[in-house]
C-alpha cells in the first residue's frame, strides 16, 4: 500500500510521516463493495455536516457572548451587524437539523442492511456514542441564543436528572451551578458545546478505523470474497459522494436561504424570562421522538428510564438480532416490521410535537410500546422463525446480474470473514 511517486518532496515527507499512503489507503485505493446504493452516501454526508458545524461554530464563537444578560443580544448582533453573520448563524442552526436528518437516515440504513452485525459491533457502538454526543451538543447549543425555548428546554431537560432517587436534586444543582438555570449554566454549556464536537471528531476517526477494518457492509449484506467484489473508493465513490453532496447542498441551501426558521420555534426569538414559561415547551424536531417516549410513561422516573433505554437498547442490537442474514432484502418478515418501526418513529416525532393529551397520548403509548417490542421481542423471534430468501453467491456475481437479484442456489450463510 505504499504509493508510487516521483515527487521528491512527497517522498521525503512520506518516509517520515506516512500521510500520503494513509490517505491513499483510506480514500483512494480503499476497496469498497461495488454494489453500494445511494443510501450509503449518508455516512460521508454526516462527516461533511460535522465539518460545516465546526467551522461555522468557530466563527460564530468569535462574535457570541456567553452571558445571561448579553447572549440574546449578541446573537442578534451576529444576525444584524456581523458581516454575513446571518448566513453563518443560519447555516449553523439549520446545519444541526441537516446533521441529524443525515445521521438518522444513516442509522436506519444500517438497521435495514444489518450493518450492526458481526464483525461490525464496535463500529455500530461507536456510532451510537456519536449520536448521544450529538444530542448533548445540539441540546447545549440550542441553549446558547438564550431565548425562551433555550431557557425552558434547558430547565426541563436538566430536570430529568431530578428523577434519580436520592441524589437527583444535588445532581441537578450541580449541572446548573445554582438553584435554577442561569448564567453559570449558560457558561458551562457554552464551554461544553465547544468541546464536544472535537470529541465527536475523535470518535468519528475510530468509527472510520473500525469501518476500514472489515470494509463497508453492502445492500446484499454478504461479505467481500475477493477483488472482483470491490472497486477502489476513488474515483467511483468519490464521484458518487460528491454528486450526493451536491444534492444535499441544494436542500440545505433551500432551508438556509428561503426557510431559515422553518425548523425552529418562534418562542426562541423571545429573550429568556425565568418567570414566564411558554405555553408548550417542545425540543427541536430531532429530539421529539425521545421526548414523546418520555411523556408516554405516566411515572417521572420510569419515563426518564424509558427515554434513555430507547437509545441504549441500540447497543444490544448485535445480540438481539438472531438472524444469520444481514440484509433485510432477504428477510421478508423483518423487512415488514422494519417499515413499521420507521412509521412508529415518525409517529413518535409527531406526538412529541403535540401536547400530551387525547389522541396524542394514545398514539404515543402505542408507538412507544411497539418501539421496545420491536427490539426486545420481535427482533430475536423473527431471527429464529423467519426463513430468509437465498443469498447471492457473491457481490460481483450479483452485480453482473444487474443488482440485487439472487441466484437460486445460494445459502443463507453470511457469517464473518475468514
Amino acid at each position, binding site marked *: 500500500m505504499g504509493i508510487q511517486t516521483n515527487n521528491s518532496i512527497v517522498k521525503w515527507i512520506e518516509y517520515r510521516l506516512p500521510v500520503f499512503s494513509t490517505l491513499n489507503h483510506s480514500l483512494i485505493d480503499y476497496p469498497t463493495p461495488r454494489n453500494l446504493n445511494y443510501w450509503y452516501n449518508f455516512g460521508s454526508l454526516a462527516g461533511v455536516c460535522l465539518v460545516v458545524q465546526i*467551522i*461555522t461554530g468557530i*466563527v460564530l464563537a*468569535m*462574535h457570541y457572548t456567553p452571558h445571561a444578560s448579553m447572549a440574546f443580544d449578541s446573537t442578534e*448582533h451576529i444576525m*444584524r*451587524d*456581523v*458581516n*454575513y*453573520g446571518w*448566513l*453563518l448563524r443560519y447555516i449553523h442552526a439549520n446545519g444541526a437539523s441537516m446533521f441529524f436528518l443525515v445521521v438518522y437516515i444513516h442509522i436506519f440504513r444500517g438497521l435495514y442492511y444489518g450493518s450492526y452485525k458481526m464483525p461490525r459491533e464496535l463500529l455500530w457502538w461507536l456510532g451510537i456514542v456519536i449520536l448521544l454526543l450529538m444530542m448533548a451538543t445540539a441540546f447545549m447549543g440550542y441553549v446558547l441564543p438564550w431565548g425562551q425555548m433555550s431557557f425552558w428546554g434547558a430547565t426541563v431537560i436538566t430536570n430529568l436528572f431530578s428523577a434519580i432517587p436520592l441524589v437527583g436534586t444535588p445532581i441537578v444543582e450541580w449541572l446548573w451551578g445554582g438553584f435554577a438555570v442561569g448564567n453559570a449554566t449558560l457558561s458551562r454549556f457554552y464551554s461544553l458545546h465547544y468541546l464536544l464536537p472535537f470529541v465527536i471528531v475523535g470518535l468519528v476517526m475510530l468509527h472510520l478505523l473500525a469501518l476500514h477494518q472489515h470494509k463497508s457492509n453492502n445492500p446484499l449484506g454478504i461479505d467481500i470474497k475477493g*477483488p472482483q467484489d*470491490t*472497486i*477502489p473508493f476513488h474515483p*467511483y465513490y468519490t464521484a458518487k459522494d*460528491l454528486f450526493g453532496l451536491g444534492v444535499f447542498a441544494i436542500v440545505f441551501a433551500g432551508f438556509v436561504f428561503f426557510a431559515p426558521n422553518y425548523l425552529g420555534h418562534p418562542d426562541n426569538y423571545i429573550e429568556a424570562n425565568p418567570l414566564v414559561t411558554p405555553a408548550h415547551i417542545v425540543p427541536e424536531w430531532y429530539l421529539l421522538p425521545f421526548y414523546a417516549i418520555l411523556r408516554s410513561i405516566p411515572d417521572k422516573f420510569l419515563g426518564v428510564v424509558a427515554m434513555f433505554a430507547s437509545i441504549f437498547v441500540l447497543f444490544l442490537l448485535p445480540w438481539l438480532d438472531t438472524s444469520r442474514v444481514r440484509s433485510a432484502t432477504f428477510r421478508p418478515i423483518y423487512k415488514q416490521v422494519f417499515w413499521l418501526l420507521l412509521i412508529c418513529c415518525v409517529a413518535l416525532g409527531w406526538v412529541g410535537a403535540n401536547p400530551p393529551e387525547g389522541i396524542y397520548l394514545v398514539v404515543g403509548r402505542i408507538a412507544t410500546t411497539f418501539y421496545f417490542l420491536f427490539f426486545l421481542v420481535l427482533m430475536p423471534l423473527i431471527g429464529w422463525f423467519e426463513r430468509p430468501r437465498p443469498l447471492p453467491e457473491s457481490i460481483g456475481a450479483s452485480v453482473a446480474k444487474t443488482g440485487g437479484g439472487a441466484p437460486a442456489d445460494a445459502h443463507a450463510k453470511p457469517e464473518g470473514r475468514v
Partner: protein
Amino acid sequence: MAQGKHGQPQGASRRDFLYIAAGGLGAVGAGAFAWPFIHQMNPSKDVLALSSIEVDISKITEGQTITVSWRGKPVFIRHRTKAEIDAARAVQLGELPDPQPDDARVRAKDRPQWLILVGVCTHLGCVPLNNQGEYGGWFCPCHGSHYDTSGRIRKGPAPANLEVPSYEFLGDNAVRIG
C-alpha cells in the same frame, strides 16, 4: 478492479472536459463559500457606524487639550496657544527625524490653533502624556519619546510623528473625526 483508464479518444476528451468543468466549478464554489468565513472577521456594521465621531470643541480653552475616544483609540484635540504655534513653526526641518512642516500637521489651514492627533506613540503603541517632555508637547512614558507642540517626534526611539487622523470642521464649534 475496474480497468478502463483508457477509453476511446473521443470519450476521453469528453471525460476530461467534464472533470475540468467539475473541478473549476468546485473551486469557484469553495472560494465563494470561504469568503463569508473570512469577511466575518472584518469590522462589523456597528463598529463601522462608530468609525466617525463628532466632537464639540467650543468649550476647549486656549492651551487646553482634551482626549476623546475614536475607533477604540485616544485622540488628542489641542487648542494651541500662539506661542506653541510659533514654536512649532520655528523648527528647522533638518532637525527633525521625520521632517514635516507644521502646516502639514494641521488639516484646516485657517485654524492653525487646532491640532488633532491620534494619541498612540509610533514606537510601540503606548499613550503619550500631555504637556510633558522637553519640547512642551507630549512625552511617552514607556520608552521616553518626546513630541513637540506639533506632535512631531523630536527625541527618543519613536520613528515617526504622531498620526493625524482625517477630520473635518463642522463650523466653529464642532469637528468630525474619521
